[in-house]
């Protein structure tokens, strides 16, 4: 349930801790994280390696669960959902974009984009192919629709991954180092695409090492040793 005092809050973390038990003892990755992201914001999360950026993203997408605290995303208390509920929720409400694209190699680009629609049944079967084709056009690779991922360049694959993330029209897009595997020019093109999506009303949260790119976001959250040390 959404907090009545933050009607446009899309993401809210309240005193989130995340710790792992390892052979070397208990390791606390996130320490008392509290933050809010409003709908339509373009937020970047930065910080040195091991600061907990990816873990923070995993909390928000439900890929991982907090040790304590609350995670409320798109009005849902994510930390209380079971795995199947999380999968369904994620498919409809969150588009995930990975650093290494993670397109399924045995499906064509068009089929990769249609896959989340098949899992979540938001769109009727007869609509899915057309919607997927429109999304590929949106990201500028409509002419590669019937190719396998292996036949595309890194930048084209990332565009396809973005199209897949948009498949069920989720309000929130989350990207972990989306340009980490791309050259500078391609990274800039991808970032321009992100800016367009935000302008169209999406909320976008990215993890990035690239300072130039993070400077283009509306808000930068800096994590060090599992704590938010700065927000600008």
């Amino acid at each position, binding site marked *: 349930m959404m907090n009545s005092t933050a009607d446009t809050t899309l993401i809210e973390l309240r005193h989130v801790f995340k710790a792992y038990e390892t052979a070397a003892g208990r390791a606390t990755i996130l320490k008392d994280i509290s933050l809010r992201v409003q709908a339509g914001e373009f937020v970047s999360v930065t910080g040195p390696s091991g600061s907990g950026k990816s873990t923070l993203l995993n909390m928000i997408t439900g890929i991982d669960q907090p040790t304590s605290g609350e995670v409320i995303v798109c009005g849902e208390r994510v930390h209380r959902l079971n795995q*199947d509920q999380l999968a369904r929720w994620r498919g409809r409400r969150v588009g995930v974009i990975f650093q290494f694209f993670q397109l399924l*190699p045995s499906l*064509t680009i068009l*089929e990769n984009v249609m*896959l989340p629609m*098949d*899992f979540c049944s938001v769109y009727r079967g007869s609509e899915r192919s057309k919607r997927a084709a429109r999304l590929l056009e949106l990201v500028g690779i409509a002419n590669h629709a019937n190719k*396998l991922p292996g*036949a595309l360049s890194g930048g084209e694959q990332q565009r396809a991954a973005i199209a897949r*993330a948009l498949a069920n029209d989720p309000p929130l897009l989350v990207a972990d180092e989306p340009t980490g595997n791309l050259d500078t020019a391609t990274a800039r093109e991808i970032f321009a695409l992100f800016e367009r999506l935000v302008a169209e009303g999406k909320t976008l949260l990215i993890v990035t090492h690239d300072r130039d790119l993070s400077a283009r976001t509306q808000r930068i959250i800096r994590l060090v040793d599992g704590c938010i040390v700065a927000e600008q």
Partner: protein
Amino acid sequence: MSIWHKVWRDVASNKIRTLLVVLSVGVGVFALGLVFGLSSIMRARMTEAQLAVMPSHITFWLSPFDQDVVTTIRKEPGVLDAEGSGLMTVRWKKQGEDTWRNGTLVMRRSFISQHMNLITLVSGEWPRDRTVGVEKLTAQYYGIPPGTAVILSYGRRELAMPVVGSLHDSSALPPEFGGDAQFYCTPDTRAWLTGNDRFDQLHVRIPAFSTARAAEVATSIQKRLEDMNIVVNGHLVTDPDVHPLQATFDTVFLILTLLGTLSLGLSVFLIINTINAVIAQQVWQIGVMKVVGATFWRVMRIYLVGALLYGLLALALAVPLGVVAANAVSRWLLGLINIQSGPSRVVPEAIGLQVMVGLVVPLVAALAPVINGARITPHQAITSYGLGTDFGRGWLDGLLTHLRGLPRPLALSIRNAFRRKIRIFLTLVTLLLGGVLFIVVMSIGESLSGTINTLVHDLGMDVIVGLQRPYRNTIVTPIAEGVPGVARAEVWDREAGLLAVPGGQKKQIYLWGVPTDSVMMTPRLTEGRALLPGDSPAIVLNKKIATDAGIHVGQTVTITVGGRDVGWTVVGLMLNVNNDQLDNYVPFNTLSRAVGWSNQGSVVAIRLDRGANTQAVMLDLRTALSSRNIEVAFVDSANDLRLRAQSQFDVLMSLLLAMSFLAALVGSFGLAGTMSISVVERSREIGVMRAIGATSGAIVRIVATEGMLLAFLSWLVAVPLSLPAAQRFSTMVGYQLLKVPLDFHYSLSAVGMWLVIVLFLSAIASLLPAQRASRMSVREALAYE
């Protein structure tokens, strides 16, 4: 050294994978141990049992004779010892019951001082006057132990006989195999029941057995008997060192050995698949080892030792199980053929073979994947983070990519099934071989049944009545045809004869004297014609006899029957597998004249009215004939003969089905292994699918569909392959068991059954990997190395 810790931990850490590999090797090694151990134990016990009973070397079936004849024959040159016995068919029932059954009454002059074909006392006492002993298996099967009583009937006489002892007679055909109940009595008891205490079988032992010497002595004894006016109905020479069923079991073991070897071959495929997968999962480890100094040969040694470890674990499982199974199955089989199994045995040769195979096979199977893995460079090993691009090369991938319009999860299942082509090929081979084997075995079963039906059809009659001695056909036929339900009765005769073959030898054959206007004689002619009215010394010869002796249609052959040489013109050749293919047809009148009984026969062939109650007619026939003082030896139906013949092959079919089940199991292990490997390799892909909305159910469906698709493909390929395989196997089994090819029936029902079985097995084999896939933590699945 730390590196051997790695080898051990690699094996111990992934228990399911290790279990699959160990089971894969273990099944094949177990199968070999079972078959070799079983055949060794059986052969040894059967020979021991055979020697222990001191079997006769020659057995004669004669007209009734007394002890004086035995005494005379004992003095014949070349004879070490002789003994007489009597064997007759009686009817019997348990006291208080109404159901009569056929039984055999064995008469011995003395049970206490037996000379050969020894019968042992299991419990109670030896039969004495007006009592009977019962064979041990008969007692168990019918529930008539010592202390009970049975009613024996012969002709119109019915007498209650106490059962005083349980005996073990290894020559008795077990009831489970269709044998009649077997009773034992003294001459006085038999005379009390039948009025006749004379022998009809003569058993002879010679000093130093050889088949040639026994045949010589048999010929001279036969002449001596004929000089004494004893009619010789036939004789049999038996190798005392070889159990009568040895040849049958040798055939069974040959077939089982082939199947066991096949199972082992399937195991090889599975090991290749699994070692390939192990290497694939350890690519980055191999890269790291090479970075820190491991050479190609060092890497080879590491993984070959791992393969050897799998072999050792498989041996630890398969060797003791093989010993236990070989002893258990031999105990069962020996019990079926009435041989004491004795203490459990360990067969060193079988264990030696298992050890060799269990160690060598994993090493050989692992060689190719290990060599490929050892060639991996550090660069190849450490540059792999995404989901890979192992799909899209080759015409098959292109074809599958062009399958449009499929739901994406189904497209995933279909295309994923073919991503690792060598692995899939090996998995398909194991599955389809299991399918081929199952269909072949079932086809052999149907072919055996079909052939048995043909055997029974070749008899040409619905019911056969055996008489104690020849009777005139003009008397017997109207009596039989007067019984309600009898459509037609014909009096036939059956005599033994000696056929002169090239080289001066004589071969024992059997002549069925059949009315030339018979409606029941329907020989399967291969050349010439059947008997016709007016034929006199004509013969329709068995094709096998003709082929072996080089006899053709139109030739005249000399057959000694009734003590005289008679010339017979071969008018036709027929295919007839009864009685070891020794049966031949001649005109009834001609045969009866040759043996000196004019128009008399000792067999009544009966054709029933459609819908007649066979059992009721059989009872009525016996009653009708007995009431007219015609002594009936036995009444049997074609269906009973069919069931008895069928039951003898049931053991073989059980063993064959067990082996095909083992092969199916190996195929299932293969599929389970392949699906497990596939799931592990695609962990990240599964994590991505979970991240974009796939529920556990969706993941399970994708993985399970992939497994069942492979199973279906294997079925599609197995079906056309099984037809020629079934034909070849059927021919082989037929020649081994019956000396003729089986009437081949391809089992379409087995085709349908295998589809259901393989889909079911594949669903089970895919379920565990599918569930593991669905339970994967998304975070762990997406974690980068």
